[in-house]
């Protein structure tokens, strides 16, 4: 029995942290928010050098054969840095291909993913609730419709799109009948997009699993990694609040000596610490195919959304007015946590899915 990261995982965690500190310090985050692609490309390159592209791909397909716990560790560091980079969409895509693709499709696409020739975005948001009649229909003439809040589309060559029946298709990002546009978003560091399809040609994944299995796996993996991202972001906000409280003086004392401030910090730590174990456990359970794995991933997403919201506000509050300004950049983490809360389903929706998985609906 050993509930801890392996030495390899600790090394991976440290590498990711070091790399992101180097290529995504606060100034780089600011630049990315101002739509400078420089830091974005730098961070993507550095992460690729760590092996994130091949991480989840099975060894017999040219990958590293690592698991979602490894991915979660890296993603947590992205959140901690509020980095203009993440591995959410690529991880969803690989897992989606493994769940829904035929053997041939897996071999063909994953080889190109590993080489970097193909970069996959994911258009599955409607699986967690469709707004404004969004949704994609598949017909003999191709895919039509729209999907909003596509993840990972900024530099994607292809998009994995779920249709209304849950079948997953791959379309070329710049193919005919495909319109992919970035959305103006409150979290300016990452890119969210909308895809409009008009009889777009696509390749449907035709593996043996029932349709729906692929998109559900993608959503589950996405939720897990969003939870990991929030975990990292919330930890940074807590750490910064504690550091600020130890330094800022009011009424002749550091504010961290006031009981009200101390207890705010203690409440944040008490809420956040078990979340780390929860995310790890959910990731490990998915890797092992454990019974409660999907339930745990949903609950990790929902719980981190709640704890993250609490910490985003409380850590800002500890910073007083400074937390509200752009000067300290604290708002990048605040907004990231807020965005993670809503992506792939708000907490109520995700809890509902967890209830459904247990037959409680």
């Amino acid at each position, binding site marked *: 029995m050993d509930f801890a990261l392996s030495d390899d995982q600790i090394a991976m965690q440290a590498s990711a942290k070091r790399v992101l500190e180097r290529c995504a310090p606060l100034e780089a985050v600011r630049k990315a928010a101002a739509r400078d692609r420089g830091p974005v490309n730098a961070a993507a390159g550095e992460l690729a050098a760590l092996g994130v592209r091949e991480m989840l791909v099975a060894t017999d397909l040219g990958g590293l054969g690592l698991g979602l716990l490894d991915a979660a560790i890296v993603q947590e560091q992205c959140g901690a840095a509020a980095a203009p980079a993440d591995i959410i969409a690529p991880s969803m895509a690989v897992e989606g291909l493994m769940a829904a693709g035929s053997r041939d499709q897996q071999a063909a696409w994953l080889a190109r993913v590993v080489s970097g020739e193909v970069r996959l975005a994911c258009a599955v948001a409607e699986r967690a609730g469709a707004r404004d009649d969004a949704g994609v229909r598949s017909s003999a003439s191709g895919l039509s419709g729209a999907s909003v809040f596509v993840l990972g589309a900024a530099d994607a060559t292809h998009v994995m799109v779920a249709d209304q029946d849950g079948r997953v298709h791959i379309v070329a990002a710049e193919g005919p009948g495909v319109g992919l546009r970035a959305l103006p978003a409150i979290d300016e560091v990452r890119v969210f997009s909308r895809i409009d399809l008009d009889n777009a040609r696509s390749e449907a994944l035709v593996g043996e699993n029932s349709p729906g299995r692929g998109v559900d796996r993608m959503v589950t993996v996405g939720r897990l990694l969003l939870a990991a991202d929030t975990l990292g972001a919330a930890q940074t906000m807590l750490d910064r609040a504690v550091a600020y409280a130890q330094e800022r003086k009011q009424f002749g004392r550091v504010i961290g000596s006031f009981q009200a401030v101390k207890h705010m910090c203690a409440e944040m730590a008490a809420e956040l610490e078990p979340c780390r174990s929860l995310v790890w456990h959910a990731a490990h359970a998915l890797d092992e195919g454990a019974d409660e794995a999907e339930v745990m991933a949903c609950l990790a997403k929902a719980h981190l959304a709640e704890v993250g919201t609490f910490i985003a506000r409380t850590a800002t509050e500890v910073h007083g*007015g400074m937390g509200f300004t752009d000067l300290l950049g604290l708002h990048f983490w605040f907004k990231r946590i807020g965005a993670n809360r809503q992506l792939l389903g708000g907490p109520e929706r995700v809890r509902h899915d967890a209830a459904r998985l247990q037959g409680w609906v």
Partner: protein
Amino acid sequence: MDLRLSARHAAFRDHVLAVLDSNRDKAPTSEHRGLKHPRRLAWQRLLIENGIAARTVPEAYGGFGAPPDILEARIIAEAFASTGLPRPLANQGISMLVPTLLELGTEEQKQTLVRPTLHGEMVWCQGYSEPGSGSDLASLATRAHIDGDDYVINGQKIWTSTAREADMIFCLVRTEADAPKHKGISYLLFSMATPGIEIRPLVDMTGAANFNEVFFTDVRVPRRQIMGAPGEGWAVANATLKHERGMLGDPSATKARFMRLVALMRRETVDGMALMHNPLLRDRLLALQARVFAMQANGLRVTTRQLRNEPAGMPELVVKLQGCELNHEIARLAIDALGELGLLYGDHPQLRDAGEWQQMYMYDLGLIIGGGTAQIQKNIISERGLGLPREPRASGG
């Protein structure tokens, strides 16, 4: 208990509504940008002339000259809420400085400053907070020494809204370095065009620069441009802050915000179902509605006590803490109801309500936490309202 208006007040309400209705076409809109757009100044003039703005300021100083009447003030506020027309100017100069000038200013100050301020021709900003003095305002460090007939000011202010647009500033400076913290502060009034003033916009989490930093380097201000006696500025500042409290936590604004949320939840759908039919979101909506009702009724209680010249006590002490939090909670539910669409910010066809929910969610947080406000409010409630002891070692705030 009788929530009806007297005949006199009912007549006043009809008058206000009639004036507003018949001048609807003169109201400025979002197209008329700039604090001093002629149309805005004309609207303010029209409101003053009809006794709907600056109502209780003496005519001699540019107001309407009616005796104070809490209920009339309330009727006016509700008339604007119900017609949706632009409210009278209510900037810091009008809401905080003018009442203080009328109470403590010299006759010359009143003669020269009140009228243009009321009419929107003279815009003020407030120089109170400093980077080192948030909740602990009295620890301010901007200094002014006397040189001939002038004060010479050096230091820095922060959280100064409208600094870039302002003609004038009312400003706290330390004039007696050796005096105890609350003594030795003076209250100066001077032009923002005075040499030596530098303004740096302070961008906040909303992406806009709602506030500024203001730097003073050897800024010379004639000694007569002081309000109150030298070294007595803390008392003057407290007089203005008393007027600030009234500005936050207006329950009719909260009610209006709540009704916009109701409209949003009836209109917006997920998977074709209106959000109002999502039992979880609806339950949160109803829980907030209870709070909205409670704060409205609490407001009626505060008004009644004011009408009766009774001390407002606890009902008034809780308004800011509860009102700001409630506003924020309404925005928070809207953000959750919008879901991913709440991440949009900026020009997009799918942006709802022009992004006001995203804006309010962040801006209100600034109101709650600015200078540790919620913490300070809890100290005030526990000490003034409940009679619990002051924090040992704490001073000020």
